[in-house]
């Protein structure tokens, strides 16, 4: 089951895309950087999930997808568990909850943001680069297209793997250079198909009048509402409380 945009009607969905992105970044930092104890981290994770349920976010694909990162969870957990010399189960659990927290938060962001909202978020994030003559819109478009086509390329990779195996390819034999060489039947067709797809897309966009330097209008206009200000207030309040807690 893939994590993709799943439309619904709730205050979280109606948030300004930039605030959505900022909030996501804030929660990710909360899970990954802050020095919280096990109970506090667990409480943050449960609160994130409960809020998502309250705001009608489709959580099933995200929770199912946690299974795909079990190896990462296990490895990081074990390494963190032994970080103090002797095995400490609390460190293991903290590391696992941190990763799950970041994963679930990113998943929620992808689930509640449409493609145009993602585009708007990237555009606004890269906006300061305009001061240096950098085309923020174009970079945002590149980011969105890459994210959009990632599942397509992965699907293609799987199809090519099966097709090459059907004609006698073996991917996991040899070591070093030989092992890399055995992956060529997979890598070259995938890369060449991705380039062909990119060229087709570029031609289709040009045929529909897309021009890099031209100023374009926007179909969706995003404004800042009361709930956006409320969310910003919570973020600022949390940061303030955290700083005060560290200082005193």
């Amino acid at each position, binding site marked *: 089951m893939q994590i993709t945009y799943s439309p619904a009607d709730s205050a979280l969905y109606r948030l300004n895309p930039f605030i959505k992105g900022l909030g996501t970044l804030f929660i990710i930092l909360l899970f990954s950087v802050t020095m919280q104890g096990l109970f506090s981290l667990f409480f943050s994770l449960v609160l994130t999930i409960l809020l998502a349920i309250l705001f009608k976010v489709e959580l099933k694909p995200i929770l199912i997808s946690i299974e795909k990162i079990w190896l990462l969870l296990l490895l990081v957990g074990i390494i963190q568990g032994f970080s103090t010399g002797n095995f400490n189960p609390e460190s293991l659990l903290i590391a696992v909850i941190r990763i799950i927290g970041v994963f679930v938060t990113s998943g929620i962001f992808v689930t509640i943001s449409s493609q145009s909202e993602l585009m708007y978020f990237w555009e606004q994030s890269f906006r300061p680069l305009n001061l240096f003559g950098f085309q923020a819109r174009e970079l945002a478009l590149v980011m969105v297209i890459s994210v959009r086509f990632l599942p397509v390329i992965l699907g293609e990779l799987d199809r*090519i793997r*099966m*097709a090459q195996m*059907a*004609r*006698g390819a*073996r991917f996991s034999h040899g070591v070093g250079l030989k092992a890399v060489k055995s992956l060529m*039947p997979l890598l*070259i*067709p995938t890369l060449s198909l991705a380039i062909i797809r990119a060229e087709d897309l570029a031609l289709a966009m040009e045929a529909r009048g897309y021009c890099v330097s031209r100023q374009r209008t926007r179909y969706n206009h995003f404004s800042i509402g009361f709930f956006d200000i409320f969310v910003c207030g919570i973020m600022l309040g949390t940061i303030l409380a955290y700083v005060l807690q560290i200082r005193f």
Partner: protein
Amino acid sequence: MINCLELREIELFYKNRRIGDKISCRFEKGRVNLIVGRAGSGKSTLLRAIAGFHKEFSGKIFADDMSFDSEGRIALAFQNPENLFFNPSVGDEVCYALIQKDDKEFRQKGIAWLEKWGIEASAFWKKHPFELSGGEKRKVALSACTVLLPEVILLDEPLAGLDFQGREKLAGIISQIARDHIVIIVTHDPENLIDLTGRVLFIGDQAVEFKCVNEFIAKSLQEPDFYPLPDWYVQAMEQKPIKKHIPRLRAESVFKYLQGTAEDADYLFAG
């Protein structure tokens, strides 16, 4: 060598969802066997299940009344097999599977097999695969996919995307290969393969039918909802009442007839 591949009560599943009805049929050597059906009916999934790549199915597959193990006995060419090219020359591409199997005679075998697919080895052996025309690419790709000479050859839409002449030539080559192998093709163009086909497995929304090709075409002409044949074919066949044997209709003849260069409707059916 296997003479007959039999599917008994095959029921396909995709992500725990059942696709279509139970399938029972016999694919025989000597003639091309077709699988047709609308998009999403499970044709390609059935091919993958026969080849052993799709495991979600119930039922049994038998080869000459013995349980069938696909390992090393099947070649499967997916749609657009030319997308799989990754070697710098046609020779390397065709011999890849033989080299993987440490076959010492890979060169001789590769050349012989490529020639069987209608590609002159001396002229094409050292060429880069991307230098070839569409039809040549398809032939090289299909020969590369089937070079291990397995007993069963499964082809997923081998004629798709080729022009009329390319289709004619490739269909002829496939029918030659079908003399010594069990060849099963998934196609959307059964009307192009009438001369070559033995039986047709039709996977429909309501039912699965296993018919002789003439019966299948006749039913499709009488009941357009059963299987939609192309308009040019249906209109040309309207020129003559359907008899038991359905003649093969060449698109070239239909084109000349419609242009008015052919005298009468009988020209369409002259072969």
